[in-house]
């Protein structure tokens, strides 16, 4: 029988984890996985604090990802409608307008990455024709009013900025009147601002994360007790450094605690997802998406 079951101090926390595991986390965990993860940490205090941290994890299951993709389409429609209102233009049927004037492009380098997979689901769920989905910007017709990118997370925004700089600018020479939009399921405010400053892309996040969602920020919603927050930060940092010396608290020091059904972003604490150096992860990341 596992440690945390026997100890009454752990009970409320493991009950919450059990409930989340059953109802939201798609039963991804079991006691063995949790035990092995906790074994990474040396003291009982550390284990308790890490178990508590785990209970605060945000996991988007398959159903929720689908829902976000539907909401993303709704967001897109509302944005286009807003622009039409602003310009006092009559678009007619909005769905028809989108099918005739909007083009969706896979993000980043490799079509096998999560962005492309999401795009496929986005198309199916929102019943859009495949003819308006392209692999590269250069193939988009010059009449396009909108080119839309889609991805699961915008953490730092650097990936989008690099993509814009290295690919889109060159490939979009013919798109003189086109507006570029980026639908992102989860976007940090910092990342969204960065992208909009460095590119011509308008970002439309479905879930927006401000500083409150950085684990150890001053306004963190995860820890209101500063002493405890520093204690947990120290643990995460010290173990994180052994795994990723330059990103001990997540890529670009994002300090996120988020995972998706299809993968865990590297903006999340590495102690959650890495299996480097014999580390036992709790939600393993598929490094193909690194």
């Amino acid at each position, binding site marked *: *029988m596992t440690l945390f*079951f*026997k100890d*009454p101090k752990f009970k409320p926390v493991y009950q919450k984890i059990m409930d989340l*595991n059953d109802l939201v986390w798609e*039963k991804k965990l*079991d*006691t063995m996985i949790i035990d092995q993860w906790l074994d990474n940490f040396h003291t009982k205090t550390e284990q308790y604090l890490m178990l508590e941290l785990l209970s605060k994890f945000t996991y988007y299951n398959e159903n929720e990802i689908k829902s976000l993709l539907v909401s993303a389409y709704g967001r897109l429609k509302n944005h286009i409608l807003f622009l039409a209102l602003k310009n006092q233009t009559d678009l007619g049927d909005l769905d028809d307008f989108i099918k005739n004037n909007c083009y969706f492009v896979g993000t980043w380098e490799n079509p096998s990455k999560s962005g492309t997979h999401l795009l496929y689901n986005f198309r199916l769920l929102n019943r859009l024709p495949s003819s308006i989905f392209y692999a590269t910007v250069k193939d988009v017709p010059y009449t396009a009013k909108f080119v839309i990118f889609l991805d699961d997370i915008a953490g730092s925004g650097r990936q989008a900025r690099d993509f814009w700089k290295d690919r889109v600018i060159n490939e979009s020479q013919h798109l003189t009147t086109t507006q570029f939009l980026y639908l992102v399921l989860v976007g940090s405010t910092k990342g969204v601002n960065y992208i909009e400053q460095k590119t011509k892309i308008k970002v439309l996040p479905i879930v927006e994360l401000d500083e409150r969602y950085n684990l150890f920020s001053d306004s963190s919603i995860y820890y209101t007790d500063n002493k405890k927050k520093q204690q947990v930060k120290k643990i995460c940092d010290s173990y994180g450094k052994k795994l990723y010396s330059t990103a001990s608290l997540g890529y670009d020091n994002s300090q996120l605690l988020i995972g998706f059904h299809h993968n865990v972003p590297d903006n999340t604490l590495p102690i959650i997802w890495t299996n480097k150096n014999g580390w036992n992860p709790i939600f393993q990341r598929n490094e193909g998406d690194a």
Partner: protein
Amino acid sequence: MKEEMAIKNPFEEVNANNLDNDEILNYWIKPEGIFNKQLEGIKLTGLIPLFLFGGRGTGKTTVLKYISFELQQKEFLKTHKNLNGFLEKNNFLGIYHRFDGPQLDAFNAGPDDRKCLEAFRLYIELVLSQNFLWMVEELLTNKAISTKFNEHKLCNDVCELIFGKKIASLNTISKIRKRLGNIQYSLEEARDQSAIHGKEIEIKNVIPRGRLIFELQNEFSKIIPELKNTKILYLFDEYENLNLKQQLLFNTLVKHRKYNVSFKIGSRLKGVKTYDTLTTEEYLRESADYRSVIFEDVLSPSSEEYKKILIKIAEKRLEHHPEFYKNRIIDIKKILGTSISPEQESKLILTSSKDKFKHFYKTEKGSKVAINKKTLNMLKCEGQPLIEKLNMLLLNRSYSVSKIESMMHAFISKNKESDLYKQYKNLYEKNKVALLFQLIADYRPRDKLYVGFDTYASMSSGVIRTFLELCFHAFHLALFAEKENLLSGKPISIDIQNDAAQLMSEKYFNEISSIPKGYGSVVTRLVDNVGSVFRGLHKDPLLSEPEPTYFTTEYENLDFKTKDVLDTAERWSILQRTRSMKPKERSQAHLTDYHLNRMLCPKYSISYRRRGRTLISSSNLNLLSFGNEIEQKHTRELISKEKEIRKARKVKDQGQPKIIDYLD
């Protein structure tokens, strides 16, 4: 998702309303105690109306649904190609209907009560008659009725009956059913319109009372031979949801039932608000107009029949799950194991504690006083903490140390001839469970363990659903934490079973607040106070009343408000009334005993056995229900102290004090 993780919990569906028909049939165990009551003149499928009383989860709905046409049809079709011969085998057809509180209430709001009641009456009759017609269509389609008959003539007769004239376009049973459906829709629309425009509900199609539920059926039995002797049974569930007027209406139908039509009515205890009818001088009389069955009386938690039913039900469920079936893990008694004995539990308590002498103390003026080392050594009994605890009790009762020691040695050495042995044995057997509770209190934060099949059966208080829910929680935790052990046939561990019991107890308590119409908070308050009193009394060092687990009161002397609260608690099975005790003196009021639902015992860490009784006067019950915080606290203390007073005046009867003295 981890595929191998996804093993279904065999106890997932516990509510009969949520079981589909196949599941009810798959899990059906015939409660012989309910079905075999012919000697008492009770026939579940007979023509005499029957009230089935029982708390939530006792099985009323399962029984009613089982005898409904849908299920009987399904069961018949398991062994037959069609329904040919169905009516010969089953000479009854059950039409199940559950009274939904909010829906009933919708016909309750309006300026004119009479019109609302009339709209309600018509609505229900329309729904029931449609179900009857649908059933006849099924019988025809599936060849239960093979004799040719003149459908046109039948429909003409029916139209004359219902609408007062022949209607040529309604020339099939199906068309008549759809017409009745349309009338029902227009009634519902009228209901909506009356709410929108603030006017009375307009009833356009008036069909006289009873026409659709007695006369209609009779028309069919006149023309279709197979239906001639077939009983039509209306199976009404949750009768308690009807308001007084609505029950008057139905009672009238029951009283004046006609032809081969009858009623089987499921209700909570005290759910029937009246036995009167719409006719002032008439009322329903038991034996003459109806019979009744109380499920709790038939399914007593300690009865062997009840336990057998639980084992069979659990077995059926486990058999339907391949992971358990293939390894023959289908005996719930083995999976839960035997209940842990007080001796075993007491040893576990000491094993898990560093200090093994916490229970060695005397009590003087309410405080713990350490005993000297010499006395300790004399009264110690290695590996037998309950014997040690009994020794402390006897010390508190002013027995000399040497006498206690002698008695103990006689008992340990099993010197059966000795009077000391007999005396000690008697005290030990009578008090060991109570002593265990005291031991638990000494070794806080240790809690009483509620584990084992017998314990689970007892805690379920005769409510099958509660037992199944306990199993659900135990399996749920076990599948998470010790899946391999479970699937290899090992019993579920004590810790997991206890966790499940505690979880269930807390959940049960929290649900009390959801009792509607404002009763939730009052019943919660009363139960919490009573539970706290019992918990305190369990720790009484003098054990003046070992295991006080129920209270008694003069019900007739209660004020109306308090009576109402007790009745509500009983209706919702939070309190369970047990047989009243006859008063000793003529001038004394009847005493009524109430037991807390045993599912609450883990919450208060009290015994679930029916042992010690506590008197709570009517005024004290009122304060425990309606008093402010200070009054409640004071009353709780008073009740505990009263036991002390009685102890001083008690008449010893084999070590058990009698309550009667207090009433002198």
